[in-house]
């Protein structure tokens, strides 16, 4: 198929005369075919979507905890990630809840779930003099919680722009507390 066609065609006699003809025309069709074949191959094998990354900063463990960084219990929202993608939250400390000051409730990761709660609390508490929301979210995950739940809740922090949040180690008291209020949820 690869044929060479002379410029004008038909004008040259016995092929001797070298006139001022254009460059010989090459049939490009097979080359184009090959080009597109290779393009298809590379398009299909390539991994275009680069994975995203989420930055996570943890507090320094080695330093002594700063004493005057105590936060107001009324500004903290504790979110506990439990088994089977369950999620529990309460304001204040466990003690406040036991005294009946705040309720402890169950929620989920939908847009009507914890997101609504965080947005509501954020709006209720307002911002401090630097314009940062006063709300502090404390995230505790049980050992049985899935990694996805952790990423989801961190994601909610980004979505709701709750600037202050921390991942805190869960203690047995928290698990017992959840078990007391939601029997059977931690077994």
């Amino acid at each position, binding site marked *: 198929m690869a044929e060479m*066609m002379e410029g004008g065609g038909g004008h040259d006699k016995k092929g001797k005369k070298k006139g001022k003809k254009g460059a010989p*025309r090459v*049939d*490009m*069709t097979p*080359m*184009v075919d090959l*080009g*597109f074949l*290779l*393009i298809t191959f*590379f*398009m299909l*094998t*390539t*991994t*275009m*979507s*680069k*994975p*995203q*990354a*989420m*930055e*996570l*900063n*943890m*507090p*320094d*463990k*080695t330093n002594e905890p700063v004493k005057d960084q105590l936060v107001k219990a009324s500004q903290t929202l504790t979110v506990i*990630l439990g088994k089977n993608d369950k999620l529990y939250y309460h304001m204040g400390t466990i003690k406040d809840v036991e005294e009946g000051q705040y309720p402890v409730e169950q929620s989920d990761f939908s*847009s009507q779930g914890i*997101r*609504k709660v965080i*947005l*509501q609390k954020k*709006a209720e508490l307002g911002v401090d003099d630097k314009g940062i929301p006063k709300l502090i979210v404390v995230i505790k*995950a*049980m*050992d*049985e*919680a*899935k*990694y*996805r*739940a*952790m*990423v*989801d809740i*961190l*994601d909610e922090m*980004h*979505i*709701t722009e709750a600037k202050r949040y921390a991942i805190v*180690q869960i203690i047995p008291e928290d698990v017992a507390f959840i078990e007391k209020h939601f029997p059977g949820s931690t077994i």
Partner: protein
Amino acid sequence: MPKVKVKRKGVALDMTAMCDVAFLLLTFFILTTRFKPNEALAVDTPSSVSEIKLPDSDIMIISVGKDGRIFFGIDGQPNRINMLQRVADDRKIQFSDKEKYEFSLMDNFGVPLASLKQFLSTPGEKRAKINQPGIPADSLNNELRTWVFHSRYANPKIRIAIKGDRGADYKVIKDVINTLQDLNINRFNLVTGMEAKPQISSL
């Protein structure tokens, strides 16, 4: 006026422009392509709205599988050899040059140090079939800590990413994070997939 009869001939299309385009695209795809690495551990990452891209170079990836196995990998062959040498000196293990070379070819691995030598001496095809048990990261024998520690010496610019499966138990992730925090690493990345940021209606 009489109609001029045009004799239809096969139209010779000038393919040059098309060819140019085809090869331009081809060059683009060849240069941007990055083949999917042959992964020993399948990790299905959760998705997030985060828009930070994971860097390609100077990166350490700690993968956590659905079953809780921990795999470890850094980029760059010289870095891998350097890291292995440091770990070997630390743990008093001898590795031959061939084993070091084999090690440098692996994107990630999940075998305890005790069986690493044997693992490296297994030929390639057989090795791919071995079910790697994962790197121990518990407090009694924290080999992950050793690897992370020495990889940071091998490449001081290294950044750390945790690539967890969405179904992995948080307990394992917690162990990994604790290991990093023990080494005074408090800033790291979580590898996630992409997700559209939802609109929040103001309350």
